[in-house]
């Protein structure tokens, strides 16, 4: 049985969230950090890397080295759509992993940077 108080709270909540839009988009698969830890420099073979991480999204070649590039993008988008005034924000962040593989097919180095932890639903069309 709804009391008057809870009815008012529901009504206020409905009014407050009227016109709110929340959406999310992702590109690629999140990079599995547990799999990354199993890659050992100078030991892990090309085939094992592909088995762990899948085929790379991109291969950079040069100086007798192949660099396997894996990426993941996460986007969160809040919006406020009112009768006559709309505000949209689209916040995107990226994770990038580079695995350096020498001409013998052995992992030589790894560069990994994660930003997607910090992507948020902040609605901020203003500011720098």
């Amino acid at each position, binding site marked *: 049985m709804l009391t008057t108080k809870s009815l008012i709270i529901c009504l206020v909540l409905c009014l407050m969230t009227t016109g709110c839009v929340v959406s999310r988009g992702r590109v690629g698969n999140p990079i599995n950090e547990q799999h990354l830890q199993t890659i050992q420099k100078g030991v892990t073979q090309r085939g094992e890397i592909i088995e762990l991480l899948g085929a790379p999204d991109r291969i950079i070649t040069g100086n007798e*080295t192949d660099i396997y590039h894996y990426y993941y993008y996460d986007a969160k988008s809040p919006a406020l759509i009112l009768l006559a005034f709309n505000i949209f924000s689209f916040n995107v962040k990226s994770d990038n992993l580079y695995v350096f593989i020498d001409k013998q097919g052995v992992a030589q180095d790894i*560069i990994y940077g994660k930003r997607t932890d910090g992507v948020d639903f902040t609605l901020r069309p203003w500011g720098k």
Partner: protein
Amino acid sequence: MGEIVVTTIRYYTATILILLSLATLGCAVRRVDFNDPIKAEGLLFIQPGKTTLHEVVDRLGGPEDLNVTPHHILAEFRWSTTRSASLNLGYLFRFVSPVSPSMTMSGTGINIERLLITCDERLVVRSYAFGKADDHAFLEFWPF
């Protein structure tokens, strides 16, 4: 006397609110942020010849691109802010007409910025430089 002042303040407040409502009718403001901006102050820790790319990535996140040249590895960090605003003047017709035609003025400013870090084959940073970028206004309605 005090009552007149209060009434005048209420009148002005109401007028300002009505003007603000009219001014924002049919407005839309959009913004797309890609990664956090990197500032020159945030790169003071880099010591060319000592700092490695791993240390840079630990602080800034991974580069969006790596390029290999015969003597260097170039790491490119990118971030951008895109702002778009539109004003639909046709919205005003809703008050006098059952049909509101679309008369939209819209502007978009894309501001892509880059930091290029040059490393040697051992991934030790040799130098870095920022790319030049435009700074667009918050609201850009005027397309002409």
